[in-house]
C-alpha cells in the first residue's frame, strides 16, 4: 500500500526525464505550489484509504481544486504585493504534517493489533 505512491513518483520522474520540458522561470513559484498540492493529495489519499472512506472523484476534485485555489491565491497576492504564496505553502505544509501524523498513528495501531493477534 505504501508502495503505490513510491512507484508512481518513480514513474513520474522517469517520464519527466524523458520529456524535454521545463518550467518557465516566471511560473516557478506556482509549480512549487502544485508540487505541494500533489504531495498533500497523496498523503490525504493514503489517510483516507486507512480510514476506509476513500472516494476517487472526491480525491481528484479536491486535488485540482486545492491546486487551483492555491495558484490563484498566489497570483493575486503577487498582483497586490502580499506574499499569500507563503501562507499557502504554510497551510499545505501543516496539512501534510497532520496527514503524516494520522497515517503514522494508524500504522502503529494496526501493527500493534497484528502483534496482539499473533
Amino acid at each position, binding site marked *: 500500500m505504501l508502495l*503505490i*505512491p*513510491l*512507484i*508512481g*513518483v*518513480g*514513474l*513520474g*520522474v*522517469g*517520464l*519527466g*526525464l524523458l*520529456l524535454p*520540458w*521545463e*518550467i*518557465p*522561470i516566471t511560473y*516557478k513559484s506556482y*509549480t*512549487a505550489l*502544485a*508540487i505541494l498540492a*500533489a*504531495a498533500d*493529495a*497523496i498523503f490525504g*489519499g*493514503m489517510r*483516507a*484509504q486507512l480510514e*476506509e472512506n*476513500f*472516494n*476517487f472523484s472526491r*480525491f*481528484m476534485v479536491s*486535488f485540482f481544486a486545492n491546486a487551483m485555489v492555491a495558484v490563484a491565491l498566489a497570483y493575486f497576492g503577487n498582483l497586490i504585493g502580499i506574499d499569500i504564496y507563503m501562507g499557502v505553502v504554510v497551510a499545505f505544509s501543516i496539512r501534510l504534517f497532520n496527514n503524516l501524523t494520522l497515517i503514522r498513528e494508524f500504522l502503529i495501531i494496526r501493527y500493534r493489533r497484528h502483534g496482539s493477534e499473533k
Partner: protein
Amino acid sequence: MPRRSWVVGVGLVSMLLGMLLVFQFRTETNVKTYLPQFKTVSELGIKWNRMQTDLNKKEEELQKLRQQIQGYNRDAELKSLRMAAGVTPLRGPGVEIILTDATRPLKSYEDPNLFIVHYDQLELLVNELWAAGAEAIAVNGVRLVAQTGFSCAGTTILVGSKKLAPPYVIRAIGDPQTLKAALTIPGGYIESQILPFELGFKIKQEKSLYLPPYKGSSVFTYAEVVPEENEELIIEEEELISGEEERTGAKEGEEL
C-alpha cells in the same frame, strides 16, 4: 471497489508529482548556472553603479576626443609650420636696417680691419632682433631659417651658403617700435658695435616689408622623427643619462 480507484488516483497524482519535481529541478539548475550569482540586491546595485560611472567617464572621454577632432584644423597648422620653416614669402610691418663699412678716409696708423662690418657683428644684430621678437629676418634677400649660420669668407660674409657683400640690408618683420628700441637702447647694439667703429647704420620703420622664402634645400640624412607617444619616455631616459654623466663628471673633477 475502493482499492482499484485508490491505486489509479494516488498513482496518477504521484506521477504528476514526480514529473513536476523533475521540471522544477531542471528550471532551478538552469537559473543557478545561467544567472550571475549575487547574494544581495545591494551588491548588484553597487556593481551597476560602478559600471554606470565607468560608462559616463568613457562617454566624456569620447566627447573630448570628438571635440579635438573637430577643433583640429590641418590647413592652419600646416600654414603656421610653413611660416616658421621659412619656405613661404612673408609680408608685414617691421624695420629695414642698412649696415655699411666706415666711409671716412682712414689715417695711416688706423687698422682698416676695424672699420669694416664683420660676420659676428651681423650675427649679433640678428640675435638682437630675434630676441626683440622678430618673426622673420632676411639679410640681402637671404631668408634666415633654423639652419642658417654666419661665417667669415675673406672680404665677404657667408650667410648660410650665400656670399654677401656690403651694404648689408637686414629686413625684420615684427613690432617696428620694439625692434628699433631694442637696437638703440643705451649700452645696446648701436652703442657697443656701431659707434666705436664708425660703421654706417640706418634704421627705417616700415609698414609693409616683403621677405623672400628660403631657397636652400632641407635634407635630413641623420635625423629622424621621434613618434609623439615615445617622446616623454625618451626625454626621461636622456635626463637619467645626463644626470649620471654629471655625477661621474663631478667625481672625475674631484680626482683631478
